[in-house]
């Protein structure tokens, strides 16, 4: 144990010194390397503390044990992934986002309706929507449709609010210009306002994926067939099989980050013209 403590302090000291030096440097490479180093140090710390100090597995498994559990239970993890992410999250996410987008366009015509709907949408969106999970189970059954429904409802409101904000943000000069060309409402919508609203839409798209994932997983706590990430987490936690739980959490984290990164990449391509994307490309921060 003393060996572990010494090793820990030495390596941490070294790591921290490196971290300070790297953080002081500018540039894109260091911008990525520094948090990675921090993460690596954290993992190392975790590993040494768990193994070196003999922390019981039921309390906190070491990273290597989690990795082992991940590898061992890969088929089960895959089945859970398919049930939760592929069958519930993706359809729910797509449905909720599409519905929110179309609803925003429908609302665009009437200021009166917008004034009435937007405050309510903001309010409803702040509510604990995961709470509708038991109701969805009652309507759609135990299997994935109820979870997809929860994901859809959770993603609907942020998309609606953001798209409406994006549509209202077009500058007066640009709109006057369209008027001077004698452009119709639909021409102005398609050629000017929808492209200008894209940054807001992407904001909502990125935010919504995590919401959909959370919605589907938490909805499974309310009842699900014997497969699914939420199901696995709650049952294995009750059985104190914590390394499996951590493996599932790692899976959820990887899924969330991977999809976020994919959306961010898509955003860079589609929104190549937007200052926020350009700033990132130019300065590397």
């Amino acid at each position, binding site marked *: 144990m003393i060996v572990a403590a010494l090793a820990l302090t030495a390596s941490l000291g070294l790591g921290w010194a490196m971290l300070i030096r790297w953080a002081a440097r500018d540039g894109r490479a260091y911008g990525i390397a520094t948090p990675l180093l921090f993460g690596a140090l954290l993992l190392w710390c975790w590993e040494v503390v768990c193994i070196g100090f003999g922390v019981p597995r039921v309390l906190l498994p070491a990273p290597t044990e989690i990795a082992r559990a991940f590898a061992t239970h890969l088929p089960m993890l895959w089945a859970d992934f398919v049930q939760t992410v592929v069958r519930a999250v993706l359809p729910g996410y797509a449905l909720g986002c599409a519905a929110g987008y179309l609803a925003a366009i429908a609302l665009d015509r009437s200021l009166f309706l917008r004034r009435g709907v937007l405050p309510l949408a903001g309010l409803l969106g702040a509510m604990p929507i995961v709470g509708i999970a038991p109701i969805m189970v009652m309507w759609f059954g135990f299997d994935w449709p109820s979870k997809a429904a929860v994901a859809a409802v959770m993603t609907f409101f942020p998309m609606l609010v953001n798209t409406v904000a994006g549509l209202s943000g077009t500058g007066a000069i640009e709109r*006057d*210009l*369209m008027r*001077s*060309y*004698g452009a119709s409402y639909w021409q102005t919508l398609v*050629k*000017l306002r929808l492209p200008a609203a894209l940054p807001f839409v992407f904001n909502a798209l990125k935010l919504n994926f995590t919401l959909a994932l959370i919605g589907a997983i938490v909805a499974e706590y309310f009842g699900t067939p014997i497969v699914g990430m939420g199901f696995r987490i709650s049952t294995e936690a009750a059985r104190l099989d914590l390394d499996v739980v951590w493996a599932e959490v790692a899976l959820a984290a990887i899924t969330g980050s991977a999809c976020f990164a994919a959306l961010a990449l898509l955003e860079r391509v589609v929104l190549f*013209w937007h*200052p926020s994307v350009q700033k990132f490309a130019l300065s590397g921060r």
Partner: protein
Amino acid sequence: MTWLSQTAPPALTSAVVEACDLSIVFGSGEHRTVALTTVDLAILRGEFVSLIGPSGCGKTTLLRAIADLEQPTGGHLSVNGKTPAQARRERAYGYVFQAPALYPWRNIERNVMLPLEIMGRSLAERRASAKRNLELVGLSEFAQRFPWQLSGGMQQRASIARALSFEPALLLMDEPFGALDEITRDGLNVHLLDLWRRTNMTVVFVTHSIPEAVYLSTRIVVMSPRPGRIVDVIPSDLGRDRPLDIRDTPEFLQVAHRVRTALHAGRSYD
């Protein structure tokens, strides 16, 4: 100063823009602002008319009213003998704003093609027009670039090319060079004058720079605020060929002096 009777048939007059006793009032009660009052003005074909005055004198409001972006509350305004709304629907004019207002997601060529897209012209026609107009403003090599890759002056030139794309006979410009530095501005002034000579358009140009107004125009309309009204209309007969150093000649300074006096008289400096 009433120029032409209200009932003269359009064919007999070559007035592109006619305002008779025009007034525009915004708001009501406590927040009532008289933007324009008793404005009488006729702008003939081929003229280059500047509207000059301090902020609040109604020059932009008058320009926007011609463009059907504001509605008159009194009096009469016609463009090409029709109401401004009809003229707008017939795409009778091109408008250039203070800011270039180019779409950042379109390259320069597609930005210039935008009005023609809305008017439903074919792709070949759009391409040809864009090519012509970019050449006119000297931006041919930048057709595939994006707006943020161009300087402010070049972006403004692109927005002028866009305004010209459907070959309007009337060009309305609202302080288009106001945000640019003086050196770029001089260059663009020469450019604009050249453009005007070549296309024979009618131009209505809003500015708050006296030298710019005198340099560019055939007539200068001096306006004054509270309430917005025309104080004087001063001809600027400096000939059609105007190199930049004409600004140091005594004739130029005389006209500038007249403009300055009129601005002062209208209590424009209060």
